[in-house]
């Protein structure tokens, strides 16, 4: 334990020294924007609860240093630093006069986005299931989806990894149904008390259907049912029903 702790601390220290951002050293070129609203409020932290400390007047320029969620850290020409809300940044312009577009996540983003990820929980053949899924959009309707999951049951535990396609029938709808199909691998680890002593790895195929419901900003709920056919080496294939519910976000 002590050795693992020491190695972990050392690894963390090295990693910290190597990868940690060093804002002071990075003489980065920052985006310059101009305020078009009567004023732009700068908060002390990246959240609506933090008090307003500085104000940038109409026509004044400021640099955008970084972004955290929907908040932007900015520096004024007087050297004052603070956090501006994304919705307020929409009232600023670039040096060429074009408006600054702050992507904050909305219904349009729910309809059309590049990536999404989520955590879902449910049941796989009667066992408790935990899954992590990510998807990339080919079009608004069609997504390539990767799912990694673990199921934990009384009889056996196991892992599943699947790759498939999801077709969102009406992506513009707030409650949007989808169909899915794909293939993957199922690794079963029987529990010690059972007869089968070794792990088993089989290919599986699935078809499924589900619903996506847009909540707010970048969030949506996701429910899915899948019918998995596990291609076993015995005479009969297994059919495992899977359902899961969880939340996901797009970016």
């Amino acid at each position: 334990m002590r050795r693992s702790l020491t190695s972990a601390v050392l690894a963390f220290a090295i990693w910290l020294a190597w990868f940690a951002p060093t804002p002071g050293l990075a003489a980065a070129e920052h985006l310059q924007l101009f305020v078009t609203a009567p004023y732009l409020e700068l908060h002390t932290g990246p959240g609506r609860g933090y008090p307003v400390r500085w104000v940038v007047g109409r026509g004044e320029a400021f640099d955008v240093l970084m972004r955290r969620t929907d908040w932007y850290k900015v520096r004024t020409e007087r050297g004052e630093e603070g956090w501006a809300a994304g919705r307020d940044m929409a009232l600023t312009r670039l040096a060429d006069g074009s408006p600054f577009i702050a992507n904050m996540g909305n219904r349009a983003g729910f309809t059309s986005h590049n990536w999404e990820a989520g955590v879902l929980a449910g049941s796989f053949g009667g066992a408790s299931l935990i899954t992590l899924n990510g998807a990339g959009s080919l079009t608004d309707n069609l997504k390539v989806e990767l799912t990694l999951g673990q199921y934990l049951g009384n009889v056996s535990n196991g892992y599943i990894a699947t790759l498939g396609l999801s077709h969102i029938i009406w992506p513009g709808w707030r409650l949007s149904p989808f169909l899915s199909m794909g293939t993957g691998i199922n690794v079963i680890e029987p529990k010690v008390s059972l007869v089968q002593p070794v792990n088993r790895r089989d290919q599986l195929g699935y078809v499924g259907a589900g619903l996506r419901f847009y909540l707010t900003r970048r969030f949506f709920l996701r429910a899915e049912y899948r019918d998995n056919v596990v291609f076993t080496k015995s005479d009969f294939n297994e059919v495992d029903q899977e359902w899961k519910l969880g939340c996901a976000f797009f970016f």
Partner: protein
Amino acid sequence: METRLRLLFLACASVALGGCASLHWPWHHKAPPQPAAGTSTTEQTADATPPTVIEPEVERRQVKVPAIKAHNLELGAYYGEISIEDFGTSRLLGYRADYHVTEDIFFEGTYGQAKGGETSYELLNGNVQLLTEAERRFTYYDLSLGYNFLPGEVFIGKNLAMTSALYMIGGIGAVKFAGDQDFSVDFGAGYRVLPTDWLAIHLDMKDLVFRTNIFGVNQLKNNLQGFIGATVFF
């Protein structure tokens, strides 16, 4: 005398007629006659010199807009204590990754490891060992959702202020202990302080609950854990 009168009369008459000629009433105004299409226009353009178009010789400069870096990912480690039910309190070491989706909500993945001690039965019975050394290894992972419900600031002296947040967190995962792996649920609260924009210090209290039958009876086990850690924003 007669000649003078004639001249005067002629002068008055010419002035009066000239005034009439220059007198126009509004209803006498007419639009100038439009040239017939394809006839006089062609003649005019043919007669006029072609307009000179000035071609700009300066190439339009491509302005490269600097990208804004988003630092929403937090990676780090933590160290603390975990009370493994029936197996005493042990040191806990873990790793965490947080992704902040909005100012309020974040996803978190953790992996922790500890080592279960001896039960009261083992302590009282001397050489009796219920689990092997390998089976005493306690590992878990969680996928959780957190909510920053009390954002605030910490003030140290009069010149130093650090942003902070008190958050609630809960999720699902799996615990591997005593030769078995079981589904688990975790929930708790934590406190995050950011000395700089890229570094965060965490203090967390969580309960890790799972159902197991280590002792032959299916029981729900509560495993309280408290830990402190540091993360770096990327």
